């Protein structure tokens, strides 16, 4: 796909303004950083509104802005249901984990796992899992920034990856979590305006009667799209276990993705953590439903107006649509919004990677190092990580959302499961968590390596018994339907077969739930673990049924 072919001055100017404001905000926020707690968790002083807005831009990365549109063109309904589950998963994160993690007073997910289960080894393993999922997440987002620059300037995507990566590294290093938080809040506001208005103009150009409210404004175009793409609204093109896998991947993946969880360590208390999520999910839903409209408009535009766009260019589709149907002013807004979306997510990821390496790894290997030295090291580490991530992102995935989906699946099995069980079941111990975490991560990683990295057909990967059931559109998602249940089963069974955790570790569960006293009967029943095992076995069995019912 060729770029626009000329320097897009207006888009470039707006993008530079977004970049400059981001750096200035970090410089301003630097004054609040006095110690390590300020640098990593903003002194635990962020309010519900600020945190909710910051979470929105963290959630709405470039993968939403441009990747989802591409996926809707390819996968149609299943792509939409995937993002519907992603929207709802924020409430799952809140109900199962957010306020409890805030009460635990950890800095990071890795610190929570180490302290809750009393194991240094688990801390190191979780740092490795965190690095894997963060790099996968980053690769997708930095490629997104590259796409914007390519379309904008006609320069290779690599230039965009390097420039965008350097800017975000600079402002994360300078401002720490205060800078990241205020930047994410600013970027959410930019993103909302820069997405809603151009999409409304596109829908108007296509003749949609409800163009002024994009999330629900394209209903009158449905009959035409049904003629052009008869299966657009047909959910049963895939085996139902795909939906179950999507649920497992999003609901437990978001709990396992440390950059989402880290936002909850920055708020004042558990109540602020809860209400920030409600604000976040409302705005995330607003933006996601607007992106569904963009995906619909893209398919509609291509099918009803006979426009041929190669599959490799689907990631550019938002810009192609806005350019063709709305005009340059709106395109400039869309480009600036994309830059803001990309920067905010990359910043959150860099932050958690720096915290993981300095606080959870170096801080444990050399516990005598004082906070002042750790803070100085954090500045250096953050900068070095930024440079390394740019280097790793030079070979990005073909479609940016695919890498994110793998990150969710691996995070769900590797980190989401131990966090949920650690909060809701006192009997969970370090042996069970170690077994579930390692095996769950390895299954997800094996899937990514064979299918995404080596490019094998999912049904041909060397996975005994289950490989042939990974057929159909987006069939690789079913790997999550294996990894998460197996992680749950192993964690529970091994925990049961090994000695229970000490009283001090079990006491943490009562404290996380806000109780002033300790009662051994709380969160210690057999109902929850048995139900989880039964459901996990059911999911794996269900995957192997109805084989002849769905298109291969």
């Amino acid at each position, binding site marked *: 796909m060729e770029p626009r072919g000329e320097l897009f001055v207006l888009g470039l100017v707006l993008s530079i303004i977004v970049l400059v404001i981001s750096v200035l905000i970090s410089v301003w926020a630097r004054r609040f950083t006095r110690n390590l707690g300020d640098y990593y968790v903003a002194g635990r002083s962020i309010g519900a509104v600020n945190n909710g807005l910051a979470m929105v831009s963290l959630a709405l990365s470039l993968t939403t802005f441009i990747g989802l549109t591409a996926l809707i063109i390819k996968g149609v309904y299943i792509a939409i249901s995937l993002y519907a589950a992603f*929207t709802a998963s924020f409430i799952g994160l809140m109900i*199962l984990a957010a306020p409890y993690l805030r009460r635990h007073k950890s800095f990071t997910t890795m610190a929570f796992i180490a302290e809750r289960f009393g194991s240094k080894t688990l801390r190191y393993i979780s740092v490795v899992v965190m690095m894997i999922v963060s790099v996968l997440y980053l690769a997708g987002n930095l490629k997104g920034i590259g796409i914007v620059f390519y379309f904008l300037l006609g320069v290779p995507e690599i230039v965009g990856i390097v420039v965008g990566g350097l800017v975000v590294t600079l402002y994360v290093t300078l401002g720490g979590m205060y800078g990241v938080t205020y930047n994410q809040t600013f970027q959410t506001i930019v993103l909302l305006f820069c997405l809603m208005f151009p999409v409304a103009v596109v829908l108007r150009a296509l003749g949609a009667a409800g163009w002024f409210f994009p999330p*629900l404004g394209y209903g009158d175009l*449905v009959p035409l799209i049904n003629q052009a793409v008869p299966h657009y609204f047909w959910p049963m093109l895939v085996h139902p276990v795909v*939906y179950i896998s999507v649920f497992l991947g999003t609901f437990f993946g978001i709990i396992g993705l440390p950059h989402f969880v880290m936002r909850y360590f920055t708020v004042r208390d558990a109540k602020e953590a809860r209400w920030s999520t409600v604000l976040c*999910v409302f705005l995330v839903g607003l933006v996601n439903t607007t992106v569904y409209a963009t995906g619909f408009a893209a398919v509609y535009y291509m099918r009803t107006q006979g426009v041929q766009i190669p599959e490799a260019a689907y990631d550019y589709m938002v810009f192609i649509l806005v350019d063709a149907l709305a005009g340059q002013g709106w395109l400039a807004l869309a480009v600036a919004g994309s830059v803001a979306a990309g920067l905010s997510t990359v910043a959150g990821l860099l932050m958690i990677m720096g915290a993981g390496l300095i606080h959870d790894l170096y801080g444990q290997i050399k516990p005598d190092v004082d906070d002042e030295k750790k803070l100085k090291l954090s500045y250096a580490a953050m900068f070095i990580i930024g440079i390394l991530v740019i280097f790793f992102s030079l070979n990005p995935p073909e479609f940016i959302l695919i890498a994110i989906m793998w990150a969710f699946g691996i995070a769900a099995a590797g980190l989401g499961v131990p966090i949920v069980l650690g909060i809701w079941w006192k009997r969970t111990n370090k042996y069970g968590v170690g077994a579930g975490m390692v095996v769950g991560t390895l299954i997800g990683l094996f899937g990514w390596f064979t299918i995404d990295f080596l490019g094998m057909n999912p049904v041909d990967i060397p996975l005994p018994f289950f490989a042939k059931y990974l057929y159909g559109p987006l069939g690789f998602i079913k790997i999550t339907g294996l990894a998460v249940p197996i992680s749950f089963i192993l964690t529970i069974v091994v925990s049961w077969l090994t000695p229970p955790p000490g009283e001090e570790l079990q006491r943490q569960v009562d404290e996380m739930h806000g*109780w002033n006293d300790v009662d051994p009967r709380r969160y210690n029943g057999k109902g929850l673990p048995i139900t989880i095992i039964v459901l996990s076995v059911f999911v794996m069995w269900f995957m192997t049924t109805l084989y002849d019912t769905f298109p291969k």
Partner: protein
Amino acid sequence: MKDYKLEVRVTLICFIIVAVIGGFFSSFIVILNERFFDKVPTPEALIQYYGESMFVAKEHLAVLGFPLHYFLLIMFSWIGVTIIGAIWCLVMDRLEERQRA
């Protein structure tokens, strides 16, 4: 134990509702609709009439022009979960006040 049971029950109910309306609801609607109001499409029918018989956007099941299951998917996974989340927050706020007292 009374407050503990309240916390667990409210959390369980809210999580199940959010999981269903955020993840599976749309497929349930379609499956049940096909099962009880239309013929269940056999594999042969799916393949034979692929692209024609797979219309699920029936006029009497449309809201604002959208197929009912699609409309419910996007509204429940957005407004629906926001409301459920807010209700859960209110209950937990009260529980927290009681715990402090």
